[in-house]
Each structure stands twice: as C-alpha cells, then as structure tokens.
C-alpha cells in the first residue's frame, strides 16, 4: 500500500515541479535564474515582477485578456443558455441541425476557421480589435455553453417548471426565473470554463491581434528575443498568467471532467 503512496508522491512531484520551478525562477535575479547547478535557496527579489509590470507592455496585454475573456464569455452565455434550454425542453425544428453544428464546432481544426476569419476581419478593417477576437472566440465557446446548459437543464425535474406554467408564467419567464436559478452553480462553472478557454487561447489571438488588442499568451512570447531569453521576467509573466487560471480551475474542479469531455463523463 505504501507503494501506491510512493507512486502518487512521484506523480504529484512531476505534476507540480515545472510550475513550482517557474515560480521559484521568477524570484531570482537574472544571474541566478540560469545558474547550474541550480540554486535552491537564495535571496528572493521582486525585480522581475517590477520589470514585467512597470517596464513592459504586460499590464496592457493583461487588461486586453481580461476584457476579451469576460466579454466573450458573457456573450456566449447570453446566446447559449436559452439555446441549451430550448434543446432540453422543446421539440424544435432546428434542433438536430443545431446539435450537429455544435458537435462539428468541437471537432473542427482551428486552422480551418482562423484563415477565413483573418480574411474576413481584414476586409472589415477589424484586425487588431477586441471585437474581432470576442466574436471569433464564440466559435468554441458557444457550442460549449449550449451543450453544457442542455445537460444541466435535463437534470432538473420538469415538475417545478410545469407548476410555474400552471401558476401563469410564460415559457420565457419559466426559463428566466425558475430554470436558470436552479442551474446557477452549473452556469458558474460553465462561465469559468469559458473564461479559462479564452484566457489560454493562443493561435487566434496571434493571428488576429497586433499591438492594440494583444492578449497575454501572445505577449508572453516577447520575452524570448533574438539576443537573449529574459528568464526571470518570462517566469514572472508566466506565473502571473497561469496563477489566476489555476485558482479558477480549482474552484470548478468538480465540473472540470464534465466540461472537458463535453458532458460525456459526469465526473
């Protein structure tokens, strides 16, 4: 039995080591950062974080990421939750089309989407804008929200909704005032999941943004220049980028497996 615990400790160490080492590196001076043999104990410094936050464009990219992630998530939830509710509760003539489209969006390679989108936004003069990215991110966020909402709604019994209708609610009121509050925690998980997806996204952001709307993942590549790799600052930026995501993920960890398998596994 202790063999199991040994194996698990090793797994934990492997899982945590890269990020932990990133955190450690972010507090080292430039000289210490790539010393070999590596220094495990040293005097920490904040100069990397200062460099990242005061001397680079990182704060601007951070703000861009926050704005884009929040907006795209809000938009996806606004459009997606009614659709999920509809698919769960009504027999609609667009239902099977919608469901096929949703599954297709999950399967479609991003490169097949981003090439046309680049051309579209270019001719619309909307390259390097927040709006372009917000709308483009709907590609993967929307289907996720719809599918997950459908799953959550299907789990609540119809009785409450039916008695509300008897009491005189319109269907929309039932959706808005009864069903949605009942799946509130599920919705929170969906929202956080969308935020994480938007925050971590790289390829679309790389191709659709320039200096104005650049997001954090793209901005991170600036720390590797032709002359040198700015280890300490790269580490500080990396920690700043990944830390919120880790916190959010831990909040929704119970729903994580469910989200990542598109609802196939209830976790």
């Amino acid at each position, binding site marked *: 039995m202790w063999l*199991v615990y040994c*194996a*698990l400790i090793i*797994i934990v160490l*492997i*899982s945590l080591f*890269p*990020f932990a*080492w*990133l955190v450690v590196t972010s507090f080292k001076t430039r000289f210490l950062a*790539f010393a*070999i*043999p590596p220094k495990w104990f040293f005097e920490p410094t904040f100069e990397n974080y200062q460099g990242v936050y005061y001397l680079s464009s990182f704060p601007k990219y951070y703000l861009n990421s926050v704005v884009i992630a929040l907006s795209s998530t809000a938009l996806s939830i606004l459009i997606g939750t009614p659709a999920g*509710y509809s*698919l769960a509760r*009504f027999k*609609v*003539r*667009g*239902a099977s089309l*919608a469901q096929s489209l949703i599954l297709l969006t999950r399967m*479609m*390679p991003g*490169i*097949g*989407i981003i*090439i*046309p989108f*680049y*051309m*579209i936004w270019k001719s619309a003069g909307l390259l390097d804008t927040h709006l372009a990215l917000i709308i*483009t991110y709907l*590609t993967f966020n*929307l289907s996720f929200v719809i599918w997950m909402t459908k799953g959550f709604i299907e789990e609540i019994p119809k009785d409450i909704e039916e008695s509300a209708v008897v009491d005189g609610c319109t269907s929309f009121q039932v959706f808005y005032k009864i069903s949605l509050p009942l799946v509130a925690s599920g919705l929170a998980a969906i929202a956080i999941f969308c935020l994480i997806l938007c925050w*971590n996204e*790289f*390829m679309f952001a790389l191709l659709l943004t320039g200096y104005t709307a650049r997001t954090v*993942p*793209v901005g*991170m590549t600036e*720390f*590797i220049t032709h002359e040198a*790799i700015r280890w300490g600052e*790269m*580490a500080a930026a*990396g920690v700043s*980028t*990944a830390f919120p995501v*880790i916190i*959010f*993920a*831990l909040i929704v*960890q119970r729903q*994580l*497996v469910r989200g*990542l398998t598109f609802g*196939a*596994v*209830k*976790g």
Partner: protein
Amino acid sequence: MVWKGWKERNIGYLLLLPALVSLFGVFVYPIFYCIFLSFNEQYLTKPYLGMQFVGLANYLRSIFDARVLNGIQLTAILVSGILIGELLLGIGIALLLDRELKGKVIFRSIILIPMVVTPVVTGLSFRTLMFHGDFGMINYFLSLVGIRGIGWLADPVTALPAIMLTDIWQWTPYMALVGLAALESMPRDPLEAAKIDGASRLQTFMYVILPSIWPVLAVAVIFRIIDSIQIFDIIYVMTSGGPGIATETLNMYAYKVGFVLSGEVTYAAAIAMELVLIVIVVTLVIRRFVRT
C-alpha cells in the same frame, strides 16, 4: 392577442434562434469561405494581385509538396506517441487512485494543474527550464546520475519526442481523471465474480475492467486525438517547427504557408481543408472501432 400566442407557441424556436444565427455566422460561413479560398490564389504579401480562381491547383500542388507529406507523417507520429503515452499513464494513474486513499481529493486537485496552465506558459517554461541544453533541469537531473544531457530541442531526432513529452505532461491528467470517473462508476459485481473465479490481476483488468471503461475512455481519446492533431501553441513557442522541419506538423505548415512564408492564404486554406478531412476520417475510423 394572436401575436402574443405565436410567441408562446414558438418559444422553443425563438430561444434557439440567436444561437443558430450565431453558429452560422461564426462557423458555417467561415468554413465555406475557407473552401472557397482553397480554390483560388491570393498572396497577403502581394495584395495588388487580387484573387484568382485556380480550381484544384492548390490541392494538386499539395500532393507533390514534400512538406505536406512531412507534415502528415510528423502529425501521425506525434499523435500516436501522445495517445499511447497518455492512455498508458492515464489509465495507470486512474487505477492507482481508484481506492480508499487519504488525501484523494488533494491528489485530484493537484493533478489537474498541468491541464489548465496556459499552454504557452507550459511551452516556454519547458523550453527554457526543462529542455534547455545548458541550463535546463532535465539535463541537470540526468547529470546527477551521470548521464550527459543533450540539446533536446536543437536535435532533430529528439525535438519531436520533447514536444510529445510536454503534451503528455500536460494532458495525462485528463485521461487519468476521465479513467477515474469511469472506474468509479463501474459496477463491482463482475469484479467480485472474477475474484471468486480466481482470475489474476491482469486478467481481471483485461477482460473485466477494460471493456467496462472503454466506452467512456473512447470519448476522451477522440477529443485528445482531435486536439493533438491541431497542436500549435507549444510547437510555436518551443521549436517553431524546427530544427529545420523536424517538428513541422501539418497544422504548423499551414500556418507558415499562410502567414509567414509568402502569405499564400489560399494554399494554406487548401492544406487546412486537407487537415479537416484527416480529422473526419480519423474520427469515423475510431467510432467504428469503438462500436465493435
């Protein structure tokens, strides 16, 4: 009054409509536009030339393009390596965790961290902190046991395995968590029966556990295959497809064709469509495999 009843009767449709319209706008339309692009010729670097119709020329060209073939091969190798690694390790970890454990919840929380760390951050930190020839930690640990480390990302032979390892590190927890969920929802009676019948651990695993969890795992496998075919972030920040074209997957080549080399978006669109075709074929093959 009649109008009000119409809204109520068609409420399902009305609730779905914005989403349908949006999906058409951000998904169906771009895909068709991409197909349209693939039958034309346009260079981003030479906008004055405009767009010209060339029929199947792009597709024909891709058949004879050595880098396309290289891209397909590398993608196949990469995906296979990743899948094998993640399946074996993931199922192994799931089996380890499927028992009464102290701190099981904490283990589950910790192992999901690699999955959510921004892939660009993962790629950059693995490139600099782990795989770096002179200053990386992997070579340091190897030197502690007397093995001389190499420049992992600079060597064409080890670059792709290094990428594989990075993705395996990142996504094995996914396979493990799905496997664990599957194991935990498995009925226990067949296991008891197998024990009574005297089956060995391996036999129990092969003939009782595996068939039971396979349908659930298959979903995860399909998603991982689709995502692995499209890996972009970590390749971009770790090797950019190099050294040379040693890690230039088809996805990466399409990106380079369209946005780096000569801005030939139309040829890139054709390659992208071929990538879509590959995904469709692979998905169909797997689903047939699962049904049996």
